[in-house]
């Protein structure tokens, strides 16, 4: 026993040591980055932190630090142009171009004569701060490549648990063996000493008596049959039900990021839901409204995607660019397109007619009512069963939204009098009639 204990202690000690070492190293790394930043600020006489705020508010729509966007990449822009020139450019670029300044005109031509907004509100200090920010070094992407140490530490607790369990099992087995050996020895002793052991009476096994009991057998059979019928029925009823269907899509599109984090309205992309029977899958030009300037996701988002979902979001954006034929470097469309073949998730049978606009515009039903918490879905899945019973239930329970809709004035007045109710459900309005959805 002593031996065993010692082994265990040493392993625990080693794990703790490893974990400590890792923790320390991480702290060291984390401290290094902010230190670098502050160094950059002092070097340029502006406040890079303030500059970052200004940049995000005013410039980020068209400029990136390290990459061309609508406008040029701004990293180290202070080295390319003298400050005075930059002041006048930022405050009113058009005026500068009008003066015939050769550099201003050159850059104007280079970027397809897209005029830059004038920012007369920015002071010279603001611009200094901005310039200071442009010297922010590109962070080497700290992709959380699993360090060997971390892996060991991460799985450390798991290993130790297993070890403990293993040891316990071993101890248990040891005890059983010992017990068996002891009994055997005692028996031997008894035989040797001539002590008579009591002989056990042979009894009828329980299964045999069960089989011979007709009543029990019948009850069991009935229960078994009913139980299997329940499961078979349930199984058959779920044929053709695709609740939870979440196919792999050609582009990993995260509703969580778009509808959740960025709070983009559903109708922005699925605009036809307001006026047509189809909600419509947005055409790629809708994506490009934003993604023209969003070529990369924020680092945190990227890291999260890699860690939690195993997805490189930036690569997915590149897929979009390829499909729509967007040349990121030259900021123009190549004209080579390839439509994205999405896998359709919500499939109503052909004989059922459903109109989105009726529900979205007229009834004002939230998209989430049928589609579930889309803003939390990393990949889209079918939330509702889409069965007829599910439709009917809602029609029975939901009151028709008649306020502010003149169409309903007359019929609501007449029907509420007829049924003697204030609020009419969709069913009372005729929403259960077969032909309303089947034609």
């Amino acid at each position, binding site marked *: 026993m002593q031996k065993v204990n010692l082994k265990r202690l040493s392993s625990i000690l080693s794990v703790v040591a490893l974990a400590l070492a890792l923790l320390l190293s991480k702290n060291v790394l984390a401290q290094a980055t902010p230190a670098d930043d502050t160094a950059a600020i002092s070097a340029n006489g502006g406040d890079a932190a303030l500059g970052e705020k200004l940049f995000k508010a005013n410039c980020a729509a068209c400029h990136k630090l390290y990459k061309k966007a609508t406008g040029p990449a701004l990293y180290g822009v202070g080295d390319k142009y003298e400050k005075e020139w930059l002041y006048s450019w930022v405050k009113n670029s058009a005026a500068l171009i009008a003066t015939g300044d050769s550099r201003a005109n050159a850059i104007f031509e280079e970027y397809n004569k897209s005029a830059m907004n004038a920012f007369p509100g920015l002071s010279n200090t603001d611009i200094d701060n901005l310039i200071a920010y442009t010297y922010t070094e590109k962070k080497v992407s700290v992709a959380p490549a699993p360090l060997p140490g971390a892996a060991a530490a991460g799985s450390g607790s798991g290993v130790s648990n297993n070890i403990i369990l293993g040891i316990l099992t071993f101890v248990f087995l040891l005890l059983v063996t010992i017990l068996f050996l002891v009994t055997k020895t005692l028996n031997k002793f008894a035989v040797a000493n001539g002590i008579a052991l009591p002989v056990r009476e042979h009894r009828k096994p329980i299964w045999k008596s069960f089989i011979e009991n007709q009543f029990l057998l019948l009850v069991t059979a009935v229960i078994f049959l009913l139980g299997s019928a329940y499961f078979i029925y349930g199984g058959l009823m779920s044929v053709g039900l695709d609740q939870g269907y979440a196919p792999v899509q050609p582009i990993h599109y995260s509703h969580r990021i778009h509808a959740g984090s960025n709070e983009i309205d559903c109708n922005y992309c699925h605009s036809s839901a307001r*006026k*047509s029977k189809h909600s419509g899958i947005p055409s790629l*030009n809708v994506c490009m409204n934003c993604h023209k300037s969003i070529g990369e996701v924020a680092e945190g988002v990227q890291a999260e995607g890699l860690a939690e979902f195993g997805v490189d979001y930036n690569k997915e954006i590149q897929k979009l660019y390829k499909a729509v*034929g967007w040349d990121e470097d030259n900021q123009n469309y190549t004209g080579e*397109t390839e439509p994205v073949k999405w896998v*359709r998730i919500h499939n109503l049978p052909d004989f059922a007619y459903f109109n989105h606009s009726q529900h979205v515009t007229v009834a004002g039903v939230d998209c989430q009512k049928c589609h579930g918490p889309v803003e939390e879905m990393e990949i889209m899945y079918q939330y509702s069963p889409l069965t007829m019973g599910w439709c009917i239930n809602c029609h029975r329970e939901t009151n028709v939204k008649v306020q502010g809709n003149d*169409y309903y004035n007359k*019929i609501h007045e007449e029907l509420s009098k007829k049924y003697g109710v204030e609020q009419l459900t969709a069913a009372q309005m005729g929403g259960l*009639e077969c032909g309303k959805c089947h*034609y």
Partner: protein
Amino acid sequence: MASNKKYWKSVEELDENSTIVEALQQNEFVTDIPTDEFLGDKETLEASSTTRRDFLKYVGFTTAAASLAACEGPVIKSIPYVVAPDEIVPGIANYYASTIADGFDFANVLVKTREGRPIKIERNDQSKHSGSVNARVHASVLSLYDNNRLKAPQLAGKDVSWTDFDTAVAGKLNQMQGKDVVLLTQTFASPSTSKLIKEFTSKFPNVRHVVYDTVSCSEALDAFQAVYGIRAMADYDFSKAEVIVSVGADLLGDWQGGGYDAGYAKGHVPTNGKMSRHVHFEANMSLTGANADKRVPATPSQQLQVLKALAGGSVSGLPEKIAKAVASAKVQLANAGNKGVIVTGLPSVEAQRIALQVNANSVVMDAVSPIMTRQGSATAVASVMQGVIDGSVKGLITVGVDPVYSFPNSEKFAPAYQKLEMSLAFSMKKGTTAALAQMVAATPHYLESWGDVQIKKGSFSLMQPTIRPLFDTRQFQDCLLTWTGNTTKYNDYIKDTWSGVLAGTTWNKALEAGVVTSSEKVLNEEISTGKTPLENSTSNAALNNTSQDGTLELTLYTKTSLGDGQQANNPWLQEMPDPITRASWDNYVTVSKADASAMGLINENVANGGLNGSYVNIKMDDVVINNVPVLIQPGQAKGSVGLALGYGKTAAIQQEMQTGVNAYAFYDNFSSVQRVRLEKTTGMHEFACVQLHNTMMGRDIIRETTLEVFNTTKRNHEGELDWNPMPKVSRDHEEIPVTSPEADLWTSFDRSIGHHFNLSIDLNSCTGCGACVIACHAENNVPVVGKQEMRKSRDMHWLRIDRYYSSEESFEQDEDKKINMSGLGESLSQFAEMEDPSANPQVAFMPVMCQHCNHAPCETVCPVAATSHSRQGHNHMAYNRCVGTRYCANNCPYKVRRFNWFLYNENDEFDYHMNNDLGRMVLNPDVNVRSRGVMEKCSFCIQSTQAIILQAKRDGRPVAKGEFNDACACSAACESGAMRFGDVNEEGGVISELVKDDRAYHLLEAVGTKPNVVYQTKIRNIKEA
């Protein structure tokens, strides 16, 4: 107890020595089964490791795997646009104004497109003279998706690129310099095209332009040109007419381009106690004759005399009946003064001139802005035909016409055409001509083309593409532009031409409306004027020949469905029953009953429920068409026969649609009247006729009365009109109206809340044209079932137009006969008589679709409640719930339910448009495609009424007055205004007035179904002078 009887198994047992008996006692078969033969060589079998058990295992596993795999739902892809066009919202239809101008049909239309696909043709209400949006125009959208269309231009039968084609044509045109080349085209009636052709012929002076109308109107054009100096046809507004006398003019059909039914119907409905009087002399029973107040059968030669008599000539020689009718008509015409009109369809310049002269002062005829949709000259075309045959014409460019198919002597023309130095055919399909041509230019459908049309002088229409060309096609005009070295696109070219007409409007506005009326004379265009047309001296030889040499006078006509035959590959049109004969998928020679019995020709209904008819060979001099089926036509003038043009096409036509015989062989001199001999041959033809019972036998189905009775009858003490009585039932020995609540088995339902839809059908203005049948077909994805199924009365049309003949002279006499019958013997014999139509019957049409009964007999018998009633008056049909017991169809008194006996889509047995990807593009995405084993029927176009309601809800407003009126495809298609749809709860709406009209009645009211379809009693103006 064992039997001692000996049973003999074969005669062989008598012979004791027979080895066979012994062998059979031992073995099952006399000789060993030659297993070696089908098991192949032993060695391989033995070498094989697959044992029988293995084999069974594999079979078992694969079956199990297959069924498991089938459990998984299919993966459906959804592919959005890369860049979505602004105007397209998936799920919302767009409408474009355009114009059809295929040389036969000219009409302003609205094209309904869904996700960029044209799916339906509708009327364009913005146009005053819209031409006629008839059944063929409605069906033309399916011809766009014809699988047999040319996919690319061809040189020597091989697909080539347009660049190669242009080079080849340019080379050929240069090579042909100085030689006579004819550009034979359809009538375009297009100012821009005329201008363009002029530019082309001035660049290539050896090319001359000849217009060829496949179905000629040459005589009418010649006569009009001689009188008014412009090659066109007079326009008529029959709504202004008090008396219409028609001599062989099928003015509700394709007479002079058609399009007169709306005006005719307007004047033929009693308003303020007045309606027009229509006297009709004709040989074939036509739609017009069927609608006339008085129809007089007369052979074409008699018709010519009738016409002359009407203009003052003598009636001597005419049968007494005709002479009397002429005299009466003459008086009535004289009384009507300038509100009388004579129209004629006789192929004789003389006859046409007479009509123009008589009408000169009539307010009905408009000679100032005539119709421009026919331009051809039979003489000019005949000379081209002769020129090709004798070799004086060296090259032929055909555009939109198929002369090898449609020339009368094509067996001589075809080899001559092949020998031409240059043969270039512009064609949508590889038709008979294109198949023989050296060069074939693939042209787009009108829904893929640009164009402008002047249907009526001063009324300009635009044609615009509604879909990107499906194939590598280029329209004729763009080709001309290329070949004349002009780099403008044809649509820009049209814009240039139009700059003068667009006074007060813009190009986009004109394009949106589709039509512009302009006082500008003609757009840079000179229509051949001068009063000396090329007279055709021989065209009326058959007309003037009254010799009794045993020949019959043949009148060639065009059917409502197929017209001149351009759309012969269109299954909707093939399946559409002829309004008169109710036969589909065929043409046939119509013979009068007297002539038929003289020649021993019969029509019989055979045991399997189909109509059979004898065959004849038709001979005209040396032209013979063998095995033409005979259809005995009530009302056919004795001594005359009729045959429809446009059938018998085989080139680029699907096997199933190669129906009928090519009657163009008899179209000698491009004249519709010929003399032929009929000769009975063996065999019986199987017709696909959907109505075998032709008379009403005095029953109360179509109600009608005369104008006099209608005007004079007062309501009786019960507040009823004698000519429109409410059926009574007896309750407690008391007569009560069938509609009274006491007579009702059911508690009534409050129908005053919300919408309640009704459809009114005016039997007076319904001409039976069938546009509604095709519109319904297109809107509701009705399948095509084919000839064999049609013959079994398994037609799927949701809307049928029943046609009834009277068995006496008139329906009134039928009823009298029925009422005056007494005793069993008399009724047995007389009812049998009443099954046969009269020799010259009255005719009545009745469109019948689901009546949407408020007390529907079908609903109560459905075991699965698949059909049920809605609060809005629809009788719903849930296809997914239907199990196909067909109880509902059996219990329907109107027989309007249709059963899907087979799967009609994606089934090779029914190889029509629903069986190919191209054809399926025409399907309406808002309506289900039904599967096998379910019942279907008219839904009152619930998809449209629901869409209108939803639109109102989205806008947050009540449904506007009259918004529902065009909701049903049938009522929207009805040009004559016979069908009106709407919400009866809409105050002051059209329909709420119509259901209360004096003339309103329900079909089979006595059965107490309380239908939501209401019919308006037919009124005939039978008063003679």
